[in-house]
Structures are given as C-alpha cells and as structure tokens.
C-alpha cells in the first residue's frame, strides 16, 4: 500500500512536472502527472502562483501554460537537500526493495 503524500511532497511533485516539461506544460498534463483531483490541483496552483513559485502564461493557441520562477527552482533544490539529509539519518521513507 502506498503512503499518503504530505503537502510539501505534493508541491514538489507539481513543481517537478513543470520543470521537466519546461515552459510548455499545460494544466491537463500537471493534473495527470500530479495525481490530484481537479479542485485540489486548482487550490495548489493558486497558492503556488500567489507565493511566487510559478507564473501563469497565455499559450499561443489559447489556454494556459506554467513556468517555474527562481523561487520554484530553489524549492526543488532545497527539497532535494533535505530529503538527502533525512535519508542519511534514516528519517525518511523506507527504501523500496
């Protein structure tokens, strides 16, 4: 059974999807990759835009795309450092066998 993701992990997953797809990522792709309901994703996206982790852009063919800001990149870097630190002390999740 997989464990429930915490808030910081969900934010990490959303930001990771956006970073991996560059500035061409659309809401449907984030929805698919982040494994969240539409409503929950909207809440997270509003918060991430409000706090300056991502910016919303208008796509050429209409619709929205998202891009990471420096703050978003910093979050991903710091999250990886903290995960790394926790793993070295055995405080994170158990490794998959």
């Amino acid at each position, binding site marked *: 059974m997989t464990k429930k993701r915490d808030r910081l992990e969900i934010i990490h997953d959303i930001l990771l999807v956006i970073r991996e797809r560059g500035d061409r990522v659309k809401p449907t792709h984030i929805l698919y990759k982040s494994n969240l309901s539409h409503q929950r994703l909207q809440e997270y996206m509003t918060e991430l835009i409000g706090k300056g982790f991502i910016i919303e852009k208008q796509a050429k063919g209409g619709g929205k795309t998202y891009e990471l800001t420096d703050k978003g990149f910093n979050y991903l870097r710091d999250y990886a450092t903290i995960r*790394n*630190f926790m793993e*070295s*002390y*055995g405080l994170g999740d158990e*490794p998959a066998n």
Partner: protein
Amino acid sequence: MGKLSQDVCRIIKVQDAAVFEALGIYAQIIFMTAGLVLLTYMTLKTEKPAVYWLMLSIALIGTLASRNVLYVFYLISALLLIFLCWHFFDNYAKRKHAKTLFVALAFLFLLIRDIQFVLSLDYEIFYVLGRLAELTAYVLLAINFYLVRRR
C-alpha cells in the same frame, strides 16, 4: 582555570570561575540530552510531541536528580546512543551509501566516547581517547553534511 575562562567570567560578571565551569557542564548535559532524545524521537517516527517531552523529562530529571550527575548523564547518553547506533547501522544496511555509513560510524564513535568517559573516572588516559573519539565523530558528521549539500 585558565586565563581565558577568568576573562570570560569577568566580562559576564560571574564572580567565581567554578560557577562558570558548572554552568558549562550543566548546559552540555541539558543540550546533549535534548539533542539525543530528539534524534531518538525522530527515529521512532511517531507524530506525538508528548512522547518527546516525556522522554526528555525522564532523561533530564533522572540525570539532574542523581547523586553523580555526570555518571548518570553518560549512562543515559550511552543507552540512547546504543539505540541510535542500531538505527543508523540498520539504515546503512538498507541504503548502502557513504553518507549513511559516516552517520553510523559517527554515532558509534560517540558511543565509544561515552564508554571511555565512564572509564576515565579511574584512568585519565581514557579521557584523552574519549575526546579523540568525539572529534572523529564530529568530523564524520561534517563530512556527511558536506556530501549532502554537494550536488
């Protein structure tokens, strides 16, 4: 008491250098116990802060209320360090990285330091060996910190 300690005492207006020394020892006991209990609490992966406060109060009251404060402090520290060593070596067995090995070895050296300090009550050479083991432990933790920060 060295000149530096006397100067520090004069600056912070502590009349007797022995009081300053005692404050340092008690600060070390309290902070070290709080740190070891916090690490033990975190390895238990429970999300009940009451468990931490209960463990900390038992450890601190047990230490400070005893007749031989230092001896009980090293005894309780050793018990916590035995548990932490077991946890960190178990973690190393699951994740075979240099980082996990350094952390496990660092806590093993801290455990050795505790045992040597207890022995140093009778043999002074163990005090020096204990300090060397402690230095090795902190160097290993610093190396781990560097490896974690490195990208």
